[in-house]
């Protein structure tokens, strides 16, 4: 806490209903107006250092412990980097299964973000009592929606478990492919659960679309600004989450770069370090940190793609794109994009698993290390994830660089909190609901802070259970 | 040589001695040598030559004279006068001493009071040759009735009789554990098969112990003779002395002694012209405390890593290269010849019911007379520390006496009147050990002392068995936390549990006794631990205790 002359700092800590530990500081000028706001990520683990000396083939297992939400994305990005160190083409079935698992991951993570973390704001309102403004409160008010949301996430988690194996999922994808093929029974079980999941996705989209007019204000203020966008596409420009190429567009929809592989994209990116946050801020090097700020994740992916590539999702995609002449710039619409991606993911999983080749047992290409550097990537739920490895002759890592989705949104998130704070806050106007809007702006990005700072645990976010009448309302701000 | 030849050597030596006016003995153990003893010896020799007293006065380098802190020590035995001793002798004083011997009036300064309890209360068996025998002359040893016991054994006794005599003496192993020597010998003697071995454990490893070093440096033949008698008794033809690499002087003197004994046919083939053959080889240790443990020592002699083996089988049944092997330590072997000569029952009159004979102690730490003393078993600790040792210097008070090194314990003031023998020491949680006795006053912190010993055991653990390898690490970690003021009572509980684990489950003696210093200090000085844990205070002011608030 700092006492500045005349000026005040408002601190929101911890930022809640996000994955990981962060705080927001809002700096007010002497006139009581918001001058600046910062988003501080408070966790740090140091994967990049302590993975040095390990063998690259262990990395899918190690890095999947970076994060409890999107372990699959790390495992797959790591395996992709490993494929490159081996210099192999992995078998078609392995790629197909990796794709299915990554989509299942996107479905479950998006369901988590939307239903567990953000829907309390959307359904109960930003000004609802904080103690009830959560998934359990949601369950009380809208039991059907809560239950559907939970079951949707469960679909994704179950699919991952059925394909990658329970708990040892971390060691399923390895350099060269995957270490277990898919059984017909597991495939049938996933396919059988699909219709309900698709139904949930559609119902939710219908409801969300209908509620859009009431969120007009948020759409304009929750991080609405021009930036670049980056996301993965297929060769023909459809939505892709794994094994595709990257496309970057500007705020007007113009192509900045297209069909980049991970290594080509990596060289375009620089990183800025701020001593007030553990989270680094990547940007497009050629344009600098201001002009070169870009967004990744669902919104970015739908902005760079020409279509989703599945029938139901494409219908919704058209509606989404009609929100704006060019790319959709309001970060609030991450929510919308997220729901569309859920639908896309479910449809695509169905297509991928309907092909009998998904049951082939040819899932692993064997080779020894053939290159000294390998950069792999995957589309994590939150956006593009890069794993960049350099190894010695024995395959031991000499350098590890993880460029994480949330980090790539860092510049945008900081801009968003400033924009929201300026729109809603003044020294005389500081109620809880307004501060919650600042947090909600961050939540739209669905940051995964554990990931972003390569963290594994989430101390000191605690879940606890209280006896009767224990409804304590905590302070939500601290002023210095 | 035959027995008669040896007798002739003795006679010649005695005659020469009778003709001498005086013998000047310079302590030539490592302690005195380090404070200028060799310069003193050179000065004495030169002065004798200069003053033309070459036939009248003999200068000899001898075993430890005991009062190490006052070295270099010089002892004068004149034909017609009482023995005299000088302390802190310089080369200049050495010249004056020689002049005094020649002239008949010894210098008055720097005289040691030989009537002080330090000298009068001792009972010397093992160290009886100190001041009398030149460590580098076998003739001196022979003149002091050396090798007479071997002669007696080879000419008059059968092996069973030797074992019986040792059993009758009640002698127990002086290396620490106190196993009855006679029993050990008879086990090896009964073991079947050829190619038995006799081993002398001269890997005196306890920090604070230097009895064996002094014996090896001052009276090496005594050890060789004891080993030869043992070899005869158990039926071995090959012996090894495993001596610490840190004792170069002892190694040199042992090598010289073996060469001399071989030349006189007291070792080697057909000893004293009998059927008995016995060779002794030296094996030099290389700095591993665990090699004091007999199975580790065996591994080391075999040229391997000094890791212990589970017992049984005991070395007496399967030791070196799987053969029956007798292992005793230096002081034990040094007791053999006197026992044979005096008779076992005579030896057994000295000491207490279960601890016979004498024990050599190395007095060190916060005590006035640091040095080597030999006392009868059963003497009260108070007498050793206050009468013989001269008490605590600088007006401080006694706090504890540490015996048994890293395997032993700390004896508090309340037990000062304890008779020092195997059972009594064990009864209060310490052990006799090899004889290191370190005195501490109120400037020593018992938690820190426990930590010190635990660090020692941690670093000396061979690493083979888990409880010792990893348990000592964790115990040290906890003790370190205590000395830094960051431990809590959970740590105390863990420490006590670990102490039990390491004691009960370790593979060898090192681990099985490693927790002793902790358990003994916890027993006798628990309040000092609590001060560290609860109040974050070190009463002795030793521990850093900067209890930086941990994250």
């Amino acid at each position, binding site marked *: 806490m700092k006492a500045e002359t005349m000026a005040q700092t408002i601190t929101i800590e911890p930022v809640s209903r996000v994955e990981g530990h962060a705080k927001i500081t809002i700096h007010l000028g002497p006139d009581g107006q918001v001058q600046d706001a910062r988003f501080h990520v408070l966790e740090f683990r140091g994967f990049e250092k302590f993975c040095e000396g390990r063998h690259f*083939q262990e990395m899918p*297992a190690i890095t999947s412990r970076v994060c409890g939400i999107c372990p699959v994305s790390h495992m797959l990005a790591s395996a992709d980097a490993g494929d490159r160190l081996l210099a192999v083409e992995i078998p078609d079935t392995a790629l197909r299964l990796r794709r299915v698992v990554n989509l299942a991951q996107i479905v479950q993570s998006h369901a988590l973000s939307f239903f567990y973390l953000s829907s309390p704001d959307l359904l109960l309102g930003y000004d609802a009592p904080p103690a009830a403004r959560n998934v359990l409160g949601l369950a009380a008010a809208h039991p059907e929606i809560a239950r559907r949301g939970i079951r949707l996430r469960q679909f994704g988690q179950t699919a991952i478990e059925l394909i990658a194996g329970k708990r040892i999922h971390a060691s399923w994808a*390895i350099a060269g492919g995957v270490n277990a093929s898919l059984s017909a029974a597991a495939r049938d079980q996933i396919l059988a659960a699909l219709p309900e999941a698709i139904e949930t996705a559609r119902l939710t989209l219908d409801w969300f679309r209908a509620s859009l007019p009431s969120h007009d204000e948020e759409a304009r203020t929750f991080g609405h600004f021009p930036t670049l966008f980056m996301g993965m596409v297929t060769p023909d420009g459809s939505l892709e989450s794994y094994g595709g190429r990257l496309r970057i567009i500007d705020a007007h929809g113009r192509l900045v770069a297209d069909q980049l592989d991970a290594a080509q994209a990596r060289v375009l990116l620089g990183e800025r370090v701020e001593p007030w946050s553990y989270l680094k801020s990547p940007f497009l090097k050629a344009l600098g940190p201001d002009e070169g700020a870009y967004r990744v994740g669902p919104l970015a992916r739908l902005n760079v793609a020409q279509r989703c590539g599945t029938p139901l999702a494409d219908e919704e995609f058209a509606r989404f794109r009609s929100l704006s002449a060019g790319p959709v710039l309001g970060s609030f619409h991450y929510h919308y994009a997220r729901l569309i991606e859920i639908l896309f993911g479910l449809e695509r999983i169905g297509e991928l698993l309907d092909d009998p080749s998904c049951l082939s047992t040819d899932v692993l290409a064997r080779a020894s290390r053939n290159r000294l550097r390998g950069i792999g990537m995957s589309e994590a739920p939150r956006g593009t994830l890069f794993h960049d490895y350099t190894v010695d002759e024995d395959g031991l890592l000499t350098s590890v660089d993880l460029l994480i989705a949330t980090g790539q949104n860092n510049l945008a998130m900081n801009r968003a909190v400033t924009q929201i704070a300026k729109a809603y806050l003044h020294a005389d106007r500081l109620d809880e609901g307004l501060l919650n809007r600042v947090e909600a702006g961050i939540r739209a990005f669905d940051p995964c802070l554990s990931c972003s700072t390569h963290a594994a645990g989430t101390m000191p976010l605690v879940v606890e259970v209280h006896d009767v009448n224990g409804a304590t309302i905590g302070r939500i701000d601290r002023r210095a | 040589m035959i027995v008669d030849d040896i007798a002739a050597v003795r006679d010649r030596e005695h005659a020469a001695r009778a003709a001498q006016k005086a013998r000047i003995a310079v302590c030539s153990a490592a302690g005195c040598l380090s404070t200028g003893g060799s310069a003193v010896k050179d000065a004495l020799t030169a002065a004798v030559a200069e003053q033309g007293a070459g036939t009248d006065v003999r200068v000899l380098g001898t075993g430890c004279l005991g009062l190490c802190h006052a070295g270099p020590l010089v002892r004068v035995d004149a034909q017609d006068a009482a023995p005299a001793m000088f302390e802190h002798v310089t080369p200049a004083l050495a010249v004056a001493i020689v002049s005094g011997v020649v002239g008949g009036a010894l210098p008055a300064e720097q005289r040691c009071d030989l009537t002080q309890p330090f000298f009068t209360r001792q009972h010397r068996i093992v160290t009886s040759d100190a001041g009398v025998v030149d460590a580098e002359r076998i003739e001196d040893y022979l003149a002091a009735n050396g090798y007479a016991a071997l002669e007696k054994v080879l000419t008059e006794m059968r092996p069973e009789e030797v074992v019986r005599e040792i059993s009758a003496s009640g002698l127990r192993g002086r290396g620490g554990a106190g196993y009855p020597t006679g029993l050990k010998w008879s086990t090896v003697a009964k073991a079947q098969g050829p190619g038995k071995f006799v081993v002398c454990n001269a890997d005196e490893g306890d920090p604070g112990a230097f009895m064996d070093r002094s014996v090896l440096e001052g009276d090496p033949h005594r050890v060789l003779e004891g080993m030869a008698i043992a070899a005869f008794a158990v039926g071995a033809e090959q012996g090894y002395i495993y001596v610490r690499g840190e004792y170069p002087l002892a190694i040199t003197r042992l090598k010289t002694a073996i060469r001399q004994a071989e030349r006189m046919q007291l070792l080697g083939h057909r000893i004293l012209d009998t059927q008995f053959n016995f060779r002794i080889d030296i094996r030099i240790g290389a700095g591993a405390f665990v090699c004091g443990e007999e199975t580790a020592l065996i591994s080391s002699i075999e040229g391997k890593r000094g890791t212990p083996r589970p017992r049984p089988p005991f070395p007496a049944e399967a030791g070196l290269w799987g053969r029956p092997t007798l292992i005793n330590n230096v002081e034990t072997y040094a007791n053999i010849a006197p026992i044979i000569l005096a008779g076992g029952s005579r030896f057994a009159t000295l000491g207490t019911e279960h601890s016979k004979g004498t024990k050599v102690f190395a007095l060190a730490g916060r005590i006035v007379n640091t040095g080597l003393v030999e006392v009868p078993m059963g003497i009260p600790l108070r007498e050793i520390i206050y009468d013989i040792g001269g008490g605590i210097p600088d007006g401080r008070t006694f706090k504890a006496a540490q015996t048994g090194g890293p395997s032993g314990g700390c004896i508090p003031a309340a037990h000062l009147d304890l008779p020092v023998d195997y059972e009594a020491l064990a009864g209060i949680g310490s052990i006799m050990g090899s004889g290191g006795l370190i005195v501490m006053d109120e400037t020593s912190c018992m938690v820190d002392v426990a930590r010190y010993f635990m660090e020692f055991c941690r670093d000396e653990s061979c*690493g083979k*068995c*888990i*409880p010792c390898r990893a348990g000592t690490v964790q115990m040290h970690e906890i003790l370190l936390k205590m000395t830094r003021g960051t431990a809590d009572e959970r740590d105390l509980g863990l420490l006590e549990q670990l102490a039990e*684990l390491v004691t009960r489950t*370790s*593979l060898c003696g090192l681990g099985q006794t490693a927790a002793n210093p902790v358990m003994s200090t916890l027993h006798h000085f628990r309040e000092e631990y609590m001060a560290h844990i609860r109040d974050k205070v070190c009463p002795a002011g030793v521990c850093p205790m900067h209890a930086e608030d941990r994250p």
Partner: protein
Amino acid sequence: MSVTTLTINGRLVSAAEGASILDVAREHDIHIPTLCHLDGLSEHGACRLCLVEVAGSSKLQAACMTKAVEGMVVTTDSERLRTYRRQIVELLLAERNHVCSVCVANRACELQDLAVSMGLHHVRYEPQAPQLAMDASHPRWIIDHNRCVLCTRCVRVCDEIEGAHTWDVMGRGRQTLVISDMNEPWGDSASCTSCGKCVRVCPTGALFEKGAVATNKDPHFVTYLRMAREQKLWNR
């Protein structure tokens, strides 16, 4: 062959002469935990997990190295023994960097199995977190000292079964480390025959195959090899 009768945990059991307590117990389905022991290799007696109580002896005896004797009364399971065994596993887990969640041998590890069987949920001792290297110079296998428990099964199988004696241990105490040749990279070892036996007998993820992330350890082939060799069964 004469037969010895003894009592284990109150049960009267018979044993072939010369059999160890461990052999007898296993023959009668009495479980005694072990780690350094491996059928077919010489006994090491170092892990101390198989310590048992023998009536009449104040000292605990290692079941792997103690011969069954006529009339012996043995207890293999008591509160005290369970406490000791648990502590030993805790000590091992604290000694090096055993991070099960990222280990190639997760769920295929004898150390982890021991912890599970003892209901061990946490370690009370200070994790030592030593900085230890990995050696991946061998074309097929890796040794990661962070996961080594120093059971020396690799050393013994290499010496006693393969006859190469590539492995041994260096240093002592907590500095003890398994080495190949003169502490040189495994891949440079002149003595290694690349037979892979060490990898198969390793109880943890310390020795593992490159790329095969879920390690399938199979230490039991040693018994077969030894039997086959002794009885010359090669060309059956």
